[in-house]
C-alpha cells in the first residue's frame, strides 16, 4: 500500500510538471493570445510545415493545426461545433454535402487575391459552382499502379486490363466504395456518378468477377505493401501513388484514358470560424504561386495553381503520371454528393463484392 502511494505521488508530480511545461511553451509561442490565432483543420501531413512558420512570420498570426483522417470524421466534428476551426480542407463531394448542411460560410471574392492564378478548368466545379465556398488546394486522380518487374506497361493501360485472368490474386484495391464502383462503371463508359440501377447492378456483377484477382482491399497500408513488392498491381489515388513511386523505382502510375475520377481538396471556411480575417489571410497566402509551388513540391500532389506549376522543376511539371494530358483530363469525372440513399446503395454493393469469394 505504501509503495502504491509513492507511485501515485510520482504520477501526479510528473503530470503537474508536464502540464506546467505545456503552459509555459504555449506562452512562449504566444498561443495564450486568442485573438491572433488561426485554427486549421486539415488532413495529416498535408502542408509543408515551413509554410506555416512562414505564414506566422509574415502575418503575425499563430497557427493551430489540427488533423483528421477522413472527410466523414471532419464533417461530424464541424457539425458538432466544439472547436472553432477557421479553415478546413475537405474533398469535393464533402464540400457539396457541407454546403447542403449549411456548414460553410460563403467566401467574399473581394477579400481574395489571386484566385485568377488557379487554372480555369479547376474552377467552377459541379460541387461548388462559381467557387462560392471553396478555393482549390490540390487535385488528383484515381489510377492503377503497376510494378514493372511483373507487369509490362502495354499490359496495363485500361481498367479492363485488371480483369485479365493473368492477374489472379495480384491486385490491391483501395477500400473506398465510390472509387471501386466508379472504376467498374467508367470502364463501360457509364458515369461514375451513375444512379441507374441497371448500370450499378452490371458494375457490381463485374466486380464480383474481378474478385479472384483481388488480393486485398486495404487503405493506407497499400503504400507500404506496394513499396515492398507485396503485390504487382494496385488501384489508388495519385497522391498515394506519388509517395510509393518515391520509395520504389519499379512502380508506375497510369490514369486510364477512358476516364477516371478527378478529385479536389479545397480550402473552405466552416461555420465554426472565429477569425475570419486570419482565414482570408491564409487563403491568400496559399494562393501565392511561390507558396503553392513549395507546398506541391513537398506534398507531391498536383497543384491547381497554374503560376505555381510554372515554378516547379521540369521533371515534376511534365510528369504525365501526375499532370496527365488534356485528352485524359477531359475524360475525368468529379464525384457528386449523391445523397444518403445512393451512397448507401454504392456501399451495399461494394460490401457484397468484398464478401464475394
Amino acid at each position, binding site marked *: 500500500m505504501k509503495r502504491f502511494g509513492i507511485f501515485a505521488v510520482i504520477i501526479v508530480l510528473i503530470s503537474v510538471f508536464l502540464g506546467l511545461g505545456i503552459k509555459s511553451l504555449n506562452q512562449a509561442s504566444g498561443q495564450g493570445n486568442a485573438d491572433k490565432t488561426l485554427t486549421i483543420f486539415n488532413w495529416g501531413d498535408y502542408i509543408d510545415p515551413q509554410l506555416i512558420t512562414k505564414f506566422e512570420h509574415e502575418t503575425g498570426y499563430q497557427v493551430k493545426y489540427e488533423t483528421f483522417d477522413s472527410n466523414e470524421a471532419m464533417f461530424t466534428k464541424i457539425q458538432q461545433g466544439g472547436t472553432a476551426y477557421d479553415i478546413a480542407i475537405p474533398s469535393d463531394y464533402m464540400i457539396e454535402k457541407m454546403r447542403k448542411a449549411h456548414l460553410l460560410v460563403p467566401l467574399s471574392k473581394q477579400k481574395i487575391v489571386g484566385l485568377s492564378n488557379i487554372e480555369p478548368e479547376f474552377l467552377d466545379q459541379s460541387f461548388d459552382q462559381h467557387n462560392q465556398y471553396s478555393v482549390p488546394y490540390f487535385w488528383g486522380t484515381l489510377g492503377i499502379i503497376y510494378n514493372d518487374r511483373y507487369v509490362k506497361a502495354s499490359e496495363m493501360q485500361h481498367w479492363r486490363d485488371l480483369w485479365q485472368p493473368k492477374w489472379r*490474386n495480384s491486385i490491391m484495391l483501395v477500400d473506398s466504395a465510390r472509387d471501386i464502383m466508379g472504376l467498374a462503371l467508367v470502364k463501360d463508359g457509364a458515369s461514375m456518378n451513375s444512379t441507374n440501377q441497371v448500370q450499378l447492378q452490371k458494375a457490381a456483377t463485374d466486380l464480383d468477377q474481378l474478385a479472384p484477382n483481388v488480393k486485398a482491399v486495404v487503405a493506407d497500408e497499400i503504400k507500404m505493401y506496394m513499396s515492398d513488392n*507485396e503485390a504487382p498491381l494496385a488501384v489508388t489515388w495519385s497522391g498515394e501513388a506519388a509517395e510509393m513511386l518515391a520509395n520504389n523505382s519499379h512502380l508506375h502510375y497510369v490514369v486510364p484514358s477512358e476516364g477516371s475520377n478527378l478529385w479536389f481538396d479545397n480550402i473552405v471556411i466552416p461555420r465554426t470560424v472565429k477569425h475570419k480575417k486570419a482565414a482570408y489571410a491564409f487563403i491568400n497566402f496559399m494562393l501565392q504561386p511561390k507558396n503553392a509551388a513549395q507546398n506541391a513540391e513537398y506534398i507531391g500532389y498536383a497543384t491547381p495553381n497554374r503560376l505555381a506549376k510554372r515554378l516547379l522543376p521540369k521533371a515534376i511539371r511534365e510528369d504525365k503520371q501526375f499532370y496527365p494530358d488534356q485528352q485524359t483530363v477531359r475524360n475525368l469525372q468529379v464525384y457528386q454528393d449523391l445523397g444518403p440513399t445512393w451512397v*448507401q446503395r454504392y456501399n451495399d454493393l461494394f460490401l457484397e463484392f468484398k464478401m464475394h469469394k
Partner: protein
Amino acid sequence: MTRTSRLSYFSLYLLWILFFVITPVALIVYQSFFNLNHQFTLQNYRDYLSSSVYLRMTLNSFIFAFLITLLTLLISYPAAYYLTRLKHRQLWILLIILPTWINLLLKAYAFIGIFSQAGSVNHFLTFIGIGPQQILFTNMSFVLVAAYIQIPFMILPIYNSLVDIDPAIINASHDLGANNVQTLWRVIIPMSANGVRSGVQSVFIPSLSLFMITRLIGGNRVITLGTAIEEHFLTTMNWGMGSTIGVVLIIIMFITMMLTASRRKGGVKR
C-alpha cells in the same frame, strides 16, 4: 461501515452503470429504429433479416469467433496448466500479460512484417526450399493473429481457477486410485470449468466484432459484423443500420453469456 456510507458507495456504482452501460445501450436501441431520413421505422431490422449479405456476414462472424475461441482454448488450457506447476509463476504470468500492454495496431503491423512476401516466415520457407507462400490476407492468418491477441484473456481466468484447486484434492484423487488422465478429466477440468467459461466469454464476444485486423491482416477478405458497423458509422453515416447490427451483437452477447453462465446445481460445490 455504516449503512449510509455503504449506500453512497452503491449509488456511485449505480450512477456509473446508468451513464456508461444503460444509457449507451438505450441510445443504440433507439437509433436502430431510425432510417436515413430520421423517420421512425422497423425497416432496418427488416433489411437485416431479409439480406443474404448481412446473414452471411453474421454466420462468418460466428464461424471465425468460434475458430478463434477454439484455438485460444486449445493453446491456453495446457499453457495455464503448466504455469501452475512452474517455479517462478509470477514472472511467467507477467510475461503473458506483457503483450497486452502493447497497442493492438502495433502488434498487427508487426504481423504484417512477419507474414508479408518479404517477411521472415517467407524467408524461412524459401530457405527450406518450399518457396514463398501467400500468408497475409488468408483466413488462416486472420485466425492466428486474432488468437494471438486473445490468448492472455483466456490464460488468466483458467490459470486463476487452476491455482485455486487445493492440491490435497488431487492427492486424494490419486490415493483413491485414479490415474493421471482420470484425475485430469474427472477432477481438474470440472473444477476449472468456471475459468474456462469466463475465458470463453471474454474471447468469443470481442472476436465477433473484430474489425481492424480484418482489414490489416485479412485484407478485407474476411468480413465480420465489425466491418459493417465501422462502415455504417464512418463511411455511409447510416447510424440507424449500424445501430441495428449493434443491437444484434448485443443480443448474441447475452445469449453467449447465458449459455456459458456457470450452472449452480450439482457439479462443482465447495
